[in-house]
Structure formats: structure tokens, C-alpha cells
């Protein structure tokens, strides 16, 4: 149990229990019938035959085939490695936004639950999962383990996570990159409200190192369609001094255009960097988001050589 679990209040513990229950429900719901059962233990999957060359292990020769063909072939198997996944949860101020149509759920809360589901899913697939929370800097790090009991540590960290400070995505990613020695899967859960170019450059470290990167970009519905009508004072969640009095009607079109541009840029850059971008809004069901993710993973796994 990590040190942070001691900081959890009784309410947090309730939340943790709920989170665990919630995540298990979601994950079991979506994995039924879709995957080989994770409880049967790891099996070795045949990949192809190869002609025997000198130096190959004798035990890997397919004697049955030798009997049939009178030639020596080697049986090759898929490399069954344990996936090491690191989930990066953005807990910057902007993640605290909770719109009118998200049932009081902030983006951060949404992200937190999403991470709970994701980690549960990954651990159940025997993968090692770690968690890093950050805002201007890295706040908490739970190293990657594949034990089921490790989930508790992750959940405790999640529950203790509070949104607040400004975002410094790129800087944080560099710190993480130093810590993440082995290649693996990097899952970034954030609203990505940062300069796209810098962000992509930081993420490029990971992709170049052979890691796979998935971004869950969290939007609130309000941020996408700007539904405000009357004069509004917008106060920044990241620094209270930044306030703007705006006539939303006057600015809506330009704002929406900017959002579209931002999103367009993000999509283009992620495609170029071979990064998976999964955009979700806080009013979406987690199952849908996870299904999307898994479908992507599936297609990557089939197309990949791992």
C-alpha cells in the first residue's frame, strides 16, 4: 500500500470502494465474450515454421513435421510479453470543469473513473499497470505491477487526486519518460489543453523509444458547443486572476472555429506520430469509451508483430 493511502479520508475510502466496484462492473461487462479468459493462465501461441539452421535449439524442431517431410523445421511461437502500461492522469485546473449536462461530473472525475476502469482491464489481462498523476509537475507515481492487489494502490492514488494547478503537460512527460525505462504502453488521460506541437514533441520520445501511446482526450460537452447565452464572466480554473467578460453570442462562432482548428491539429499530429487519440466527452458511457479503446488495441495487435 502506498503512502498516499494513509491520506485518504473515510469518504475517500467509500469512493475507493465504489470505484473498485464500478471498474470491475464495467470491465467485466465489456470483456465478456470478447477475450480469452484471463483466468486460464498464459498460453503459447504458434506463429510459423522456419527451416532449421545450424545453431537452432534442437528442442524446437518439429519432429512430427520431420516425419512427414523428412526436413528439419523449427516451430516458432509468438513472443508473449507482459505489457507494461503507464497511465498518466492530468489533474490540472482545467480538468476541474464540470458542465451543466454532465450530471455534476467534472472532467477530472470522469478521467479518474476512466483510469480505474482502464487499469482494472489491463491488470485482468495480466498486464503490468502503473499510474502517474501530474499538473505542473509529477505528483504521484505508482509503478507498474501486474498483481491484482496492485489495483488498490492505483485506486488509492486516484481517489487522492485533486485538480488545481496549471498544466505543464510537456515538461511532465519528459520527467515521465526518464522514469519509464522499458518500452510499453503510455496512456495519457488529459484534456490536452496545451500547445499541440510541444505536446507531440514530448510524446514523440515515447513513440521513438518503441512505446505505444494512447491519448484519452476528455472534453466537456460545453467546451465543444459553447451553449452560453447571457453575458458571462469566464474565470480561469488554472489561475483565478484570469477573468474575461464576454458576450457569448458574439464570440461563439469564432470560439467554435478555434476548437475545430485545435482538434484538427491534434488529430493530424497524432496520426503522423502514430499515436492513438480517443476523444471522449464527460456525458459518454465508460463502456463506450473502453470499447473504442479495445477495438483499437485489437486492430493494432493483429496488425502488429508483438
Amino acid at each position, binding site marked *: 500500500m502506498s503512502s498516499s493511502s494513509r491520506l485518504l479520508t473515510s469518504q475517500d475510502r467509500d469512493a475507493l470502494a465504489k470505484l473498485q466496484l464500478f471498474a470491475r462492473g464495467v470491465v467485466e461487462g465489456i470483456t465478456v465474450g470478447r477475450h480469452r479468459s484471463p483466468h486460464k493462465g498464459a498460453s503459447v501461441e504458434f506463429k510459423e515454421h522456419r527451416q532449421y539452421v545450424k545453431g537452432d535449439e534442437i528442442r524446437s524442431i518439429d519432429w512430427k513435421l520431420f516425419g512427414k517431410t523428412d526436413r528439419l523445421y523449427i516451430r516458432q511461437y509468438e513472443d508473449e510479453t507482459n505489457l507494461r502500461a503507464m497511465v498518466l492522469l492530468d489533474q490540472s*485546473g*482545467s*480538468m*476541474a*470543469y464540470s458542465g451543466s449536462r454532465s450530471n455534476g461530473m467534472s*472532467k477530472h472525475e470522469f478521467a479518474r473513473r476512466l483510469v480505474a476502469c482502464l487499469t482494472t482491464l489491463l491488470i485482468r489481462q495480466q498486464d503490468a499497470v502503473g499510474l502517474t498523476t501530474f499538473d505542473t509537475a509529477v505528483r504521484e507515481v505508482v509503478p507498474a505491477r501486474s498483481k491484482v492487489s496492485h489495483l488498490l494502490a492505483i485506486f488509492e492514488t486516484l481517489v487522492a487526486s485533486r485538480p488545481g494547478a496549471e498544466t505543464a503537460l510537456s515538461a511532465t512527460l519528459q520527467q515521465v519518460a526518464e522514469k519509464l525505462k522499458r518500452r510499453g504502453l503510455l496512456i495519457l488521460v488529459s*484534456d490536452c*489543453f496545451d500547445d499541440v506541437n510541444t505536446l507531440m514533441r514530448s510524446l514523440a520520445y515515447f513513440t521513438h523509444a518503441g512505446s505505444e501511446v494512447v491519448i484519452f482526450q476528455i472534453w*466537456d460537452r460545453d*467546451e465543444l458547443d459553447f451553449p*452560453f447565452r*447571457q*453575458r*458571462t*464572466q*469566464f*474565470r*480561469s*480554473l*488554472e489561475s483565478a486572476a*484570469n477573468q*474575461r*467578460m*464576454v*458576450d457569448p*453570442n*458574439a*464570440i*461563439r*462562432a*469564432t*470560439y467554435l*472555429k*478555434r*476548437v475545430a482548428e*485545435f482538434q484538427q491539429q491534434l488529430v493530424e499530429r497524432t496520426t503522423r506520430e502514430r499515436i492513438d487519440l480517443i476523444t471522449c466527452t464527460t456525458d459518454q458511457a465508460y463502456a463506450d469509451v473502453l470499447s473504442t479503446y479495445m477495438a483499437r488495441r485489437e486492430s493494432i495487435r493483429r496488425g502488429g508483430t508483438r
Partner: protein
Amino acid sequence: MSFLNWMLLGGAAAFTLPLLIHLLNRSRFQLVDWGAMHLLESALQANSRRMQWQSLLLLLLRCAIPILLAVALARPVLTQWRIPGSGGDKSIVLLIDNSLSMDRASTVDPSTCFDLALKQAAEILGQQSATTEFSIWTIGGVPTDILVGTTFDRRRALAKLQALRGGAGSLLVQTALAAGLKQSQQMQNANREIIVISDFQSGDWQGFNDSEQTAWKLRVAAEAVPPRVVLMNIEPAAARLTNLSVDLVALETPVIVAGQSFPITADVRNHGNTVVEDATVVLQVGEVELTSRRISIPAMGKTQVVFACQIDSPGQHDIEIHVDDAFGVSGDNRVYHVVDVRNSIRVLIIDGQPTAPLLKRSSGYLSLALSPFQGPEATKNYAITHSIAANQIKPQVLNEHDVVIMADLPRLENSAAEAIAAFVNQGGGLLLFAGNALELNWYNTQWGATSKSPLLPAMYNTPPQAALPKNTSALPDSKIKIQSSTIAHPALKEFARPGAGDLASVEIRRVIELQLDDASPAAAEVNATESQVIMRLESDQPLLVAKRYGEGEVLQFAIAADDGWSNFPLRPAFVPLMQGLVQWLAAGTNSEHNLTTGQAVTLFPNKGREVASDAKPASSTNIDVVFTTPNGEPISKTLPADSPVSFDETAFPGIYRVSRGQGNQPESLFAVNLPAAESKPQTLATSELQELARALDATQASTTATYFARESLRNNGRELWRILILALVVGLFVELWLQQRIARGAA
């Protein structure tokens, strides 16, 4: 500026509503803690400034809309244009141009300009109130009062208007305007207006020059209640391809003798821009077509046609020359001329030496020269000569003759002298020759410039030295010749060319000095204006002097008509020269039978050669004169017997007939022609018309709609509510558009 419903102006206070809503909106706002601040800020940066002024504009518009509505409902009226007191009952003088040029097709309507003018006049009449007084004049040729006075009866005025016809002579602008002004001053209502409806043909209106315009303005200003002047121009269609006109009839011979051929010349003009081939020109005398000619006329040019005409019966005859013109204006295709055909010229020679042998007296040479044919050929003579002695002179005898020649008469009885003066005054011709017997002082006293009846064109110079025989200035040593180059008289134009008519061979030995400068300055003035030197000697002395006296003319020679003073009577030139002079004198007042439209016809009741001497009516009786216009309308006038009969209703071209008394008097004819300028299609350009309107302080309108709009403006001032409502609607649209634009945040 005034308001019809000024109380509604209070509604303008409603402009505070949008302002209040705006201010309220500003103070009420919601607070949102926002994450995507960087997106919001970049959006704000893009259009914050434009947003500000658009919002401000929107606010102003919203404030302006209730103000505009309130002001429009209050019905503001701009009264600057209104003329004080002009709202009262009106008196309108309509001057309608019915000159020939108005018969052209108009651009506005398929009908002619004149029809359009009538239509506009009818519209103007129709729109007036029952208290409006009208007067309608046609101003082509002679201004004519159609209603004869004024009327308040619109129906009557409209009926008269429908009966009007065009094709009259040229418009005399000054006369027409003066008639309109005079009429307007006699009208009852103080709000007076003169409306001129015309095509503003250049030929007519350019004659109305600056000084006349100024004079007109001064006249209008001098009136107690100056009328307004409105110029309504009717636009004619572009010039037709062809319009032919006939003008300028010229007769080569001053006297037309029955049965003898005479040339008559007419100019046929083509005002179009294409050549006209095969136009038929017809000469007609009375109702009889005499001859015709086929001609071609160049574009914008003219062709002269000379007809040989012969009329066998004496008396007045009307000649008409017309050209076929299927396309142009028809009114100018004919020209009229009235000629006086005589049997022959009756010449009375009063001889000072009736007893001398034929070739020893002046009258002998003269009668031979004037009636050269003898015996059966005598009918070919232009003149019939009678010779009488001085004591036989009586008014009756004189009146039977056209020309009287006095040759070498010493003196006359006073009664005879008066009879001759009266004869000339009534249109007779007098030819005076000098001679040895002449008593110069008697002539100077009886007929000189200072006398009661100054017949003499020049005084005989009485020589200072009594030594000279018979008061004549002798030129014993030199034989003086005639200056043929200075002859400038129409009767003698055959002799005007140097070397022609062998005047050069004439040698003059003796001459009486003719003095045009008299001692009396008053007489000199009369002489200088009325006398004309026709022939001169090479010594620059006058040889032949002419003077008009009353209706007649006097020619005075400085030499005698026999061979004693010169060899002139013996030269061949003597015959044609005498015949020419006698023809000239006999022609008398022939030209007054041929007039242009608008000119007045004047007839003298006692005119000697026209009224038989025994039929002269007593001066106490009035004469009934009936004028018949070309379209057969009789106009009767009763005038005193002893004063001239004048008739000025000659607006339309054609032959006018005059019969006097109970119709037992011979008819006399008058030909009235259009001025040649009337056929020219040019009208004033728009700028010229504007300048004219400015010069006359007049307003200009080309349609009745313009006229009525201006009238309404003048009477009521300009109502502004339409403009304001329009502005309001525009404002609403702009507000809507601006709001949409702000909502879209269009980049």
C-alpha cells in the same frame, strides 16, 4: 419645419428602452469557471475590436428606430419650399405651342407632339379645383385666345382644348409671353401661373435673345402680382429620315402681265439625312394644276425649281407650289403666293410740250420706249401710254393709271399737284424727268422736303449764278458717263454688271444737280432715311433718286427724257431701262399680299387702283369685311370706311380671302407662308432649356407628374414621413442583419 401631429413626438422618448435594456444586460452576467481559456482568449483576440463597434452601432440603431417612428408619426413638413400665400385659388394661363414643328411625332407617345401637348394641358386642367380660373392661348403664328377671356368652367375649357389644331406658323416667343402676361394680369386670383407647353424648337426660341429675356423678367417683376412661369417641354422623336419643305417663292418680274409667261422659283429643302429621289413638285394656280416637275434633293440640302408660269386672266391669283412628302411633317410641303396679274401697265405721260413734234419732246421717246409694238402687235406691250397736257390732270384720270410720268413740265396747278401727291400716296408710281422748261423753285416749294407733301426724293439745286440759262447747270465741255457699277436697284439689276446694257455708251452733256442734303436739318433727316440714289454719274453726282411716299414711289431723274441733254434716249438701253422702272413703279404694293404667319394683313379701303373710282364709298359708311381663313372659316369685321382694315389672325399658312361690303367688291387674296425655320427639326438641348428656365426665373417640367409634384411641394411643403418610414424600414433591416452578423460572429 413643422409637425402635423407634434404631440406624437413624445414617442421619441422610447429610445431610452433599448438603452435601458442594454445597460441592464451589462450589469447582469453569470460567472463560469472555465477550463478552455486558451481557446476563448484566442477567439476574443480575433474579433474584440470589431465586436465593440458593431455592438455600439447596434445600440445606436435600436435607439434610432423608436425616434424615427415617432418623428414619422408626427408627420414633419419641410416648409422652406412653400411660397407664402401660394396656397390660394389659382389663375392659370396655358400657352400651347401649335406651330408646325409640334406636328412631329413625339418620343413619349405614338401621337404627335401637339397631341401630347393637348393631353398634358387636359391633365393640368383636369386636376385643378373648381375655383381655378383658366385662360387658354395657342401661340403658333399669332397668339390666339381660345376661350376669349377666362373661365372657371373646366368642361368648357376641355371642350375648347379638344377642338384645337396644330400646323400654325412659327412661335413668336416674346409676343406670346407678353400676351400670356397681359392675360394673367387680368385674371381674378392672386396665385397666377403661366404654363408654356412647347417643343422648344431652336428656330423659335433662340430668337428670344438675352436682352428680350431680361426685358421679360423686368416686366414680370414690375407686375403687382408676378405670375410663376412653367416651361413644359414636349420631346419630339429623333429627326425623321426625310422631311421636305418648300420655301422662298421668288418672282423674277415685278409685274405680271396677263397672257405672258413669267418665271417663278421655289426652293425645295430636304431636312433629312438621306437623299430624296423622285420628289414631285407641283405648280398650281388657283385650283388648277399647271405643271409638275420630278426632282431629287440631296441630304440636308436644297434644290431650286424654276417654273414658267402663264396666267391669262388679269386680277389676283393664288399660286401654290407643293412637294410630295409621304413621311415628313405635311404642313411645310406647300408654299403659297399671290400675284397681281395685270392686263398691262397704264402709264400717263404728262407732257410739258404737247405741241412739239414727236421726237422733239420727252414724251415721244418715253411712249416709244414703253409701247414699242404698234398696230396688231400692240397687245405685246407691257404698258399702255396716254399723253395728256398739264391742264387735264384730274384725280379720276390719275386713278385709271398705274404710273404717271412728268417730263419737262414747268409747273402745275396747285390742285393738280395735290392730286398727284394723293395718287402717289395711295400707291401710284411717279417718274420725274428734268428739262429746259422746269421751274425748279416751284418744284422745291411744292414738293420739296419742307413742303406739305414732300414728294421729291431730292431737291433741285438752284444755281447761284443767274447767268446760266434756264437754271440748269451746263456741262458744255465734258460728256459725263454713268457709273454702272454702283447701280443697286432691283428694277435695274440687268444694268448693274459693268459693260452690260450698253449704259457705258451713254454720254450726258447736261444735268440738274440733285441735292439730297437739304438746308433744313429735319428734312435732311427725312431724305436721308427715305431717299435712295439708284444711279450716279461718274462725277458722283446723283442721276436717278428714289423715294417711297405713302404707298407709292417716286423716281427722279437729273436729266431730261429727250436728246437735248444726253444721248440716253437714243441708246438701246433706254427701252429696257424705262420698262424696268415703270414695271417697278407699277408693282406698287404687291408684296404685301404675301406674308408670313403672324404678320397682320392691312387693307386700305380707298386704295385707288383696287377700288373703282366711282365706287368709292362715302367716308361715313362702315364696311363689312369678311376674311376667310384657309380652312374656310369666315371671320367678319366691321371697320370705318376711312381707316385701314387690319386682320392679324394669320396663324395658319394658306390663302386668305377678303371680301368687302356685301360681297359685291372684288375679292382680294393674301398668301400666308410658314417661316422656313419652322421646318428645321432642331429643338433646344436640355442644357439650353435649363438655361432658358433660369434666365426667365421659370420652372421646367417635362411631364405633368413633375408639374404636379412641384405644385404639391409648393403648396404644402415637403412631407417627410415617407422618407422617415423608409429610413425606419432600412434601419430595421440593418438591425436584423447586424444582429445576425454578430450572432454568427462572421469573420
